[in-house]
């Protein structure tokens, strides 16, 4: 068969001289082609379906978190002008004064009401306001005692339940007995709003305060700082140790049964459930080594143990990806092995190492179980001050608020998750940025 005939046979089934031989062949080829296209189409369809399913789960998850959490970021504030009656204020014992009462009667007066004999009405009004107003007034008087006898305007968040009403999360349509505010209170809230006493703004308190028993005063800052301190410990321990381990294993260690065994073990460690690291940390760091519990230090130690295998694996694969020609080049001009690694291989592996390290860190930041095991379930209304002061971390804060009974904490749980996710997005974004920044062609 000549070339020309071959081409004719392939392109023209009815070509001269080949009509009988090539037709069934071409038919079979067409059939195979059709089957291949169908298979490809089916596969693409499966892939798209999988993506759609995964995306819709993600959207549902995020949508639920955002729809639950958004209300935390809106804060309703009230300002009340209070006449500080010198008759009721003992300048020598300012702490003993019932400031809350003074404020709630002032708020009632704004609505043209006075307290009843048993103080029920002022109690109901007080429930609508945050104790923060009382503290604010006390602070102002302490700073300037000459304010006694004058009218002082205090400004602060309204109570959590009142806030829920303004945000539409407590509805008038619910039977009175089933909601935490009665009809009279709802009426007052409407009037206060109508009189322009109530404003709403972005809730910066949530981002700057530590935890509190009062939902309207509680914030994630304590947990965020705890997380940041913990992450610093994790980073300072896991990254250098992990990177150096990987460099040694990959570039210097002999390849024998022991290093193989080590490799298998490291890979398995990456899959050990985090609660086991928590137990290990409890036994090793707290009970044996006496590291103070509930602190970012001990949390960081445990999470560093957990992040180590991931950092090692990521670093090793980044080192493996460096072309051997670079090692040859460096060795060829007379660089020692250490120089080769530190001058050439490691810098080239840096984007991969950094990406892996940041992902390990953000993974560690999201871990709850180790934090629970080493006592980071901790209520503190103070911001943590250092590596040795008791602290909690963001995922544990989620856990704490999830278990809180007050309704307002439900939304705060979601809001805390949003803060945690924002942290993660920030870190992963950094990883992507670093990768594209340092990645070079070679």
């Amino acid at each position, binding site marked *: 068969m000549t070339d020309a005939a071959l081409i004719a046979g392939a392109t023209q089934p009815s070509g001269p001289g080949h009509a009988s031989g090539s037709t069934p062949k071409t038919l079979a080829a067409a059939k195979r082609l059709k089957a291949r296209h169908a298979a490809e189409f089916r596969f693409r369809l499966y892939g798209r379906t999988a993506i759609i399913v995964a995306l819709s789960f993600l959207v549902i998850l995020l949508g639920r978190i955002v729809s639950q959490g958004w209300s935390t970021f809106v804060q309703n504030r009230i300002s009340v002008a209070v006449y500080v009656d010198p008759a009721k204020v003992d300048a020598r014992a300012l702490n003993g004064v019932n400031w809350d009462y003074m404020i709630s009667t002032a708020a009632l007066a704004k609505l043209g009401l006075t307290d009843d004999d048993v103080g029920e009405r002022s109690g109901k009004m007080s429930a609508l306001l945050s104790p923060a107003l009382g503290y604010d007034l006390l602070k102002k008087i302490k700073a300037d005692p000459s304010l006694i006898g004058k009218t002082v305007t205090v400004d602060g968040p309204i109570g959590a339940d009142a806030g829920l009403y303004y945000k539409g999360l407590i509805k008038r349509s619910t039977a009175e007995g089933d909601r935490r505010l009665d009809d009279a209170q709802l009426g007052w809230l409407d009037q206060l709003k109508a009189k322009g006493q109530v404003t709403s703004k972005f809730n910066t308190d949530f981002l700057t305060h530590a935890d509190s028993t009062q939902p309207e005063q509680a914030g994630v800052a304590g947990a965020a700082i705890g997380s940041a301190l913990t992450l610093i410990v994790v980073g300072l321990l896991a990254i250098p140790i992990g990177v150096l381990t990987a460099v040694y294993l990959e570039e210097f260690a002999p390849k024998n049964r022991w290093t193989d065994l080590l490799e298998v073990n490291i890979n398995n460690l990456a899959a050990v459930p985090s609660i086991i690291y928590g137990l290990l940390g409890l036994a090793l760091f707290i009970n044996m080594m006496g590291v103070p519990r509930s602190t970012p230090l001990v949390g960081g130690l445990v999470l560093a143990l957990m992040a180590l295998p991931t950092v090692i694996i990521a670093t090793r694969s980044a080192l493996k990806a460096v072309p051997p020609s670079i090692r*040859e080049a460096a060795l*060829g*001009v007379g*660089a020692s092995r250490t120089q080769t690694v530190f001058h050439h291989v490691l810098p080239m592996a840096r984007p991969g190492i950094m990406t892996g390290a940041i992902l390990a860190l953000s993974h560690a930041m999201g871990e709850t179980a180790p934090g629970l095991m080493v006592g980071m379930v901790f209520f503190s209304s103070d911001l943590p001050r250092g590596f040795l002061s008791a602290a909690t971390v963001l995922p544990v804060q989620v856990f704490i608020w999830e278990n809180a009974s007050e309704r307002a904490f439900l939304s705060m749980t979601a809001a805390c998750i949003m803060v945690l996710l924002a942290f993660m997005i920030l870190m992963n974004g950094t990883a992507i940025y670093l990768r594209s920044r340092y990645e070079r062609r070679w």
Partner: protein
Amino acid sequence: MSYISKDPSNPSGSPMTTPERHQGDHADGVPEIRLRTAAIGAHADAPTGTLKVQAKKINVFYGAKQALFDVDVDIPGKAVTAFIGPSGCGKSTFLRCINRMNDTIPGAKVTGEVLLDGEDVNDRQIDPVTLRARVGMVFQKPNPFPKSIFENVAYGPRIHGLAAGKADLEEIVEASLKRASLWEEVKDRLNQPGTGLSGGQQQRLVIARAIAVAPEVILMDEPCSALDPIATARIEELIDELRQQFCIVIVTHSMAQAARVSQRTSFFHLGKLVESGSTEEMFTNPKDSRTQDYITGRFG
């Protein structure tokens, strides 16, 4: 003519017409005076020179597999020696014995002696890192560091402490790039990445990097196999120039290239050295029938 001489102090006689000394020539004892072969392919007068590298009974094993069998080769100084032979016959393996790059291959074992100026490179006294500064290497694929052109050349002198200061280093870089005939093309962009050059330029950069540490021997493993004919011609010209100052060993699959650039040729086959001799003799009058077959393209 009898070039092969086991006695390093006995340079073969060759007519001296134009003695040439080059800038940067290493004064290592006896001044090497040699005729410059002006026209490529003219090897009638083989170069003079002492033996630079002498390999004796080299056997190399990769694990259980033996790659080289009792190889004896003599390599003269200030000349180009070509290694030819079919793929997998052990040319690269032998090359790596000279600068001990086989040390870096796990499972590789070398027996025998490689004498560099009469000193065994496998001696425990010899540090492979210092050895590799004396025996530079150029690889098949250009492999510049992903750093600037300047850094590529400056790296070797810097780690070996060859430059007294910044100005000195700049001088070395410039001289090396000039000797690699790359200076004119890159002098305005020394700070740009070396990986941004063309393949042929990269290979010359790599050669500049190798000569910047002032080696005595330069090993080149198929330096032109990734290059187009024009870039190849430039590298060949460069090699021809460099042999004034360096002992050059080149592995090549191109018979024409071996004939053009080398004064000595060794033919390897199945891990054994079949034949060594002056290039002219090897190409015109090989003693072994296998050499004959390979050169004429009958196998390989």
